[in-house]
C-alpha cells in the first residue's frame, strides 16, 4: 500500500516538475523571438494573398476563419495604437476578413472607422463600406459610416447628406439620422454635428476601442473650438495694437477673453509665432 502511494506521489511530482519545465521552456522560446507575439500573429496574415484565396481553402469554416482574423485585427490595431500608430496592413486585414464573412457588420464598421481616422485612409474605408452595402443592403450602419467619413474627413457635405438620408430610411436606423442629413445638406456647423455624431457613437457602441476613439475626437473638437476663440482674440489684438500679444495671458489681462481655458487633457494652450495650439492635440493628430 505504501509502495503504491509512493508511486503515485512520484508520478504526480514528475508531472508537476515536467509542466513547470514546459512553462519555463515556452517562456524562454518566446524571449528568443525578435518580434512580439501580436506582431508575429498579424505578420502571418500578411502572407495570405487575399480573402479570395482563403475562402476556398477554409472550405466550410470561413466563419471561424473570419473570427480568427477578427481577433488578430483587434490585436494588430491595439498593438500599433500603443506603439508606432502605423497601420499599413489594416486595409488588407479587413478586406480579408469581410471576404470571409461578408455579413460581419461590426468588421465593416470598426475597419472603416480605424482606416479613416487612425490610418488616415478615408477612400479605402469608403471602398470597404461600399463593398459591404452590396452584401448587406438593409444595414443602415454602413451608409451611415460612409456619410460620416464624407462629412468629417472629406468635407463633401452633399455626399454625406445623401448617405445619411439613405441610412435614415433603413430598418432600425437611429431616429436622428434624418436630422443629420438635413444638417449636412445645409452645410451648417461642422463641429456641432461632428460632436453630436461622436457622442451618439460613444453612447451606442460596446466596442471599447471605438469608445476611446470617440472620446479622443470629442476632445479634439473641444480643443478646436477653444483655439478658434483664442485665435480670434489674437487677431483682434493685432488689429488694435499692430503687433501680436507676447502670450495668451495678455489677452486675459486686457479683457479680450473672459478666462484662459485648459485643453481637454488638462494642459495649457500655447501661443507661438501668432498661432494658438494645443501641444497634446498636435501630438495626437500627428500620431506621435
Amino acid at each position, binding site marked *: 500500500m505504501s509502495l503504491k502511494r509512493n508511486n503515485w506521489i512520484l*508520478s504526480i511530482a*514528475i*508531472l508537476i516538475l*515536467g*509542466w513547470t*519545465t*514546459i*512553462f519555463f*521552456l*515556452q517562456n*524562454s*522560446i518566446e524571449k*528568443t*523571438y*525578435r518580434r512580439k*507575439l*501580436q506582431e*508575429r*500573429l498579424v505578420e*502571418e496574415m500578411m*502572407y495570405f494573398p487575399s480573402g479570395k484565396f482563403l475562402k476556398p481553402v477554409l472550405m466550410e469554416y470561413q466563419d471561424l476563419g473570419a473570427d*480568427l482574423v477578427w*481577433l*488578430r485585427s*483587434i*490585436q494588430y490595431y*491595439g498593438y500599433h495604437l500603443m506603439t508606432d500608430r502605423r497601420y499599413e496592413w489594416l486595409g488588407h486585414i479587413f478586406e480579408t476578413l469581410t471576404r470571409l464573412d461578408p455579413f460581419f457588420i461590426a468588421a465593416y464598421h470598426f475597419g472603416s472607422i480605424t482606416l479613416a481616422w487612425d490610418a488616415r485612409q478615408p477612400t479605402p474605408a469608403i471602398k470597404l463600406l461600399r463593398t459591404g452595402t452590396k452584401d448587406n443592403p438593409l444595414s443602415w450602419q454602413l451608409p451611415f459610416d460612409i456619410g460620416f467619413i464624407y462629412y468629417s474627413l472629406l468635407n463633401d457635405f452633399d455626399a454625406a447628406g445623401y448617405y445619411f438620408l439613405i441610412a435614415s430610411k433603413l430598418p432600425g436606423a437611429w431616429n436622428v439620422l434624418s436630422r443629420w442629413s438635413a444638417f449636412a445638406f445645409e452645410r451648417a456647423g461642422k463641429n456641432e454635428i461632428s460632436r453630436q455624431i461622436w457622442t451618439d457613437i460613444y453612447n451606442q457602441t460596446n466596442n471599447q476601442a471605438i469608445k476611446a476613439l470617440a472620446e479622443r475626437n470629442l476632445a479634439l473638437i473641444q480643443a478646436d473650438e477653444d483655439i478658434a476663440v483664442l485665435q480670434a482674440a489674437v487677431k483682434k489684438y493685432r488689429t488694435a495694437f499692430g503687433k501680436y500679444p507676447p502670450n495668451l495671458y495678455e489677452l486675459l489681462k486686457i479683457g479680450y477673453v473672459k478666462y484662459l481655458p485648459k485643453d481637454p487633457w488638462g494642459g495649457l494652450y500655447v501661443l507661438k509665432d501668432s498661432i494658438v495650439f494645443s501641444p497634446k492635440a498636435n501630438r495626437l493628430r500627428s500620431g506621435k
Partner: protein
Amino acid sequence: MKILAIVENTFKEAVRDRLLIVLLVIGFIAIASAKIIKPLALGEETKIIKDLGLATITITSVLVAILVGGRLVYKEIEKRTIYIMLAKPVHRFQFIIGKYLGLLLVIFFTMTVMTGGFYLMLYITSTPATYSLLLAIVLSFFELSIITAIALFFSTIATPITASLFTFIIYFISNFTRDLKATAQISPSVIVKGLCNFFYYLLPNLSNFNIRNLVVHNEIINSTTIFLSIIYAVVYSALILCLASIIFQKKDF
C-alpha cells in the same frame, strides 16, 4: 534489449500496414504535382514548390502518427497479443516506450522517404535546395514526436477512431495556442485570462516547430529558438508518455 524488441516489432508491423503505403503514395503525388503547378505560379514557383513539399511532408507524417498511432495499443488488446507480451518479463512502461519509439521510427522512415522525393522534385524543377529546408523538416520531426506521444496516450484509453479523433483535435487546437495567449493579454476578465494561460501552457505549442514560412522566405532563424524547441519536444513527449504509462499501469486485462 526488451524495448528494442518491441521497437523492432512495432516498426515491422507498421511498415507492412497498407495505410502507410497509401499515405506515402498520396504524399508523393502531392509533391509531384509541383511540376504541374510550376507554370501557373507566375514567378512564385520556387516558393510554391518549397511550400508544397514541406507541407506535404508534415501533413503525411501527421496522418501517419494519428492514424497508425491511434490504434497501436488498442490493436494489441483487441488481438489479445498483449497477453503474450505482458506474460513475459516486460514492464508496462517499457511496452509503452517501445511502442512509442517504434512508431517514431516509422515517422522517421516516412519523413526520410518523403524528403528524398522532395529533394528529387527540387532537382527536377531546378529549384535551389538550401540547408535550412532540411532544418524545417527536422523541427517537423520533433513536432511529430509530440503528436505521436499524444496519439499513443489516447490509444491506451480509447478505441482507434476515438483516439485518432482526439489526437486530431489536440493537433488542431495546438496550432492556435498562441491565440489563447494573445486573448489572455487583451481580455479584461481575470477568469478568461487564467483559463487561456492555463491551456496555453497545458497544450503543446506546435507553432514553436513551424519555421517553414521563415525558411521559404529565407529569413534568419534563431538557433537558440530551435535548440529550446527541441528540448521542449523531448520534455513534453516524456511527460505524455509518463501519463500514458500511469494509465496503462492501472489497466486490467
